[in-house]
């Protein structure tokens, strides 16, 4: 009996200290391995918010006009390095997909007009781009980092969201999926910069 007490007491004491510590450690592990800035979007498979964008050439473009087409909606700024990194890939993808009922659309946010125009010229961007100076479209799409890309399928649903720079494989895979009406269950992630 005495021996039992002698052997069990330290074990119980150890458990009493270790188990709360393990809980705290588990919480820490969970918290520290997540990106505290990441904001998971609730918009996947939801209808895309309507907007009217004034393009750099002065034309007005309404999202409703693109109904029935897949829309590749890219939010960018000239000061954001990942935006620069993906710019040429985006233009190349536009060249590949423009014949397939896919529309690329760039929305410039938190930027200056001349810097944005210089960016478009520098990378030879030919798909339509416009400025969202008040950030209303960006907020409507829950934008919090740059670049952010939304793919809107033929039915006007958001089929994919990507935060950060895009590579060729992701663009083509997700556009092909959208063309087939496949909606992603998770958003993608690459390098990004927080918006200002």
């Amino acid at each position, binding site marked *: 009996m005495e021996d039992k007490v002698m052997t069990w007491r330290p074990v119980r004491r150890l458990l009493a200290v270790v188990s709360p510590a393990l809980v705290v450690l588990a919480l820490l592990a969970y918290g520290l391995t997540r990106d505290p*800035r990441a*904001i*998971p979007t*609730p918009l996947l498979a939801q209808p895309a918010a309507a907007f009217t964008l004034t393009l750099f050439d002065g034309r007005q473009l309404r999202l409703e006009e693109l109904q029935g087409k897949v829309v590749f909606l890219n939010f960018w700024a000239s000061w954001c390095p990942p935006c620069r990194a993906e710019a040429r890939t985006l233009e190349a993808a536009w060249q590949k997909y423009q014949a397939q009922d896919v529309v690329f659309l760039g929305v410039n946010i938190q930027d200056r007009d001349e810097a944005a125009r210089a960016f478009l010229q520098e990378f030879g961007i030919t798909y339509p781009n416009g400025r969202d100076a008040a*950030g*209303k479209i960006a907020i409507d799409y829950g934008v*919090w980092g740059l670049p952010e890309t939304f793919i809107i399928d033929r039915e006007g649903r958001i089929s994919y969201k990507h935060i950060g720079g895009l590579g060729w494989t992701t663009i083509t895979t997700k556009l092909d999926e959208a063309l087939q009406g496949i909606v992603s269950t998770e958003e993608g992630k690459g390098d990004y910069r927080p*918006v*200002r």
Partner: protein
Amino acid sequence: MTIARFGEGGRTSWLLAWLLGFWLVLPPLHLAQMELDEQVRQVGAQLRCPLCQNLSVADSPSETAQQMRGVIRDQLQAGKTPEEVLAYFRSKYGDWILLSPRPHGFNLLVWLGPLAGVAMGLAVAIMAVRRWARRPGLQEHPTTDPALLDRVRREALNDEADLSVADPEGRSPLELERDRLYAALQELAFDSRAGKLSPADYEALRADYEARAAAVLAELERQPRTPAPSASPLPAAASPSAVPHAGQGGPRGRRWHLAAGGVCLMAFALALGYFLGQSLRPRTGEQDTITGDFLTGTGPEGIAPGSRGPAQNLAQLLAAGRAAYERQDWQGAIDAFKKALALDRGHPEALTYLGLILLQGGHADRAFLAIERALATDPTYPLALWAKGLVLFERKQDYAGAIQAWETLMAANLAPADADVVARWVTEARQRLAGQPAAPQQAANPGGTITGTVTLAPQLSPEVPPGGALFLIARKGDSPPLAVKRFPNPTFPLTFSLGPEDQMLAGTPFEGEVTLLARLKRNGTAGPPAPGDLEGRVRGPVGVGQQGVGIVLDTAY
């Protein structure tokens, strides 16, 4: 004072025309704007800025937060409720965007975690208190061999000489433990002799240590002998833990001490948590901090009136606003009163002044709204009552309403001069109400005479020595007296009439606005006041032709 200035002299139409000119350059005033600002701030304070760490949209200076505030403003202006605006942001950013996580799912941890922590802390505290309070008596070691106990007593208390020769290096852990217990017993005996322990505590602790030492000895005897001789077992130094704790194993009373201590500690922790929580609040402006109220003294509500801090700030802001108003710096006045309203939303003076500025800008409806808000806070606030009457009279032609407001005002304790002005306006309003055009004041009093009454302030002596005289002096600015009248051996109240016949300066017409002063000279001669003389003046200018002017002798030299 301000009242008198507003209504004085029958020059209202001229004043209004002039103010209307001002209105053209007046910046747009938006009282409703202030309310909207506040709503935007309240909604923004509940939203997390998407790129700042732990800042609300209301507090963040980032461009994104600015744009979000713009969206909040637009939606509120479009008629959405704050809840709908919050729901909009949730639909775009998810629950992440809410500063207070909603209590469901994983988020429950945030709400229940602290409660669980408190519960666990309580459990640990109770366990610890119970353990401390448990009396470590011999019953814990019922099987101790009496022979071993004797040996413990002998070795521990009689072998003090060996304390210095011990070599901890060559001892087994059991021997070290035995030596530690012996040292503790020695210190216990020393403390007992020194009177630091009660006999009961000493006995209890001694029995405990002896029993533990006996158990160690029994264990040592079961084990094969170590090279170190067990006959000289005393340690070099006692470890700090061997110092007996006076609190350990005390008598029954001690248990209550500990329990009470634990309860006090808990109460302190709870109070600290509560008050610290109370001392944080949303920022009310760019210069504000998140700490506030009575703990840090920076909050708007935690400071008793009259103490320093925000109350003084409020007074300073109001004074600055009045000063700006007086020098017709409308923007400065608006800024100061808006800041005052940020500290106290319903401050009647700030609201009334804003209303007066709005009125001068021609925004009669908004002015009326502001004045009504002031009266909602203080239904008898004189300036607001005056201004309400003015709005109703001048802009809305609601003479009955104006009369009602002004009569409420007259029921209040007004200075005689102010009461006279209000009475004149009430008369005029009555005339207009009866459909009679009001005759100009000057026409009724063609001679340009000022009439009124001089009274004595109640706290001053009414005695006037024989040969004393009252001088009534009218001046224009700082110039020499324009008109003076002498009343020998006056009795109060004294009715007076000051007209062109009393003029001192030839060539200066007795018209326009003058300052009026009454001086009671005990020696009856004109000149500056001497000790014992009394003086009273009408605050603000008096229009020549004005009737029923009241002067109170309230200053003694």
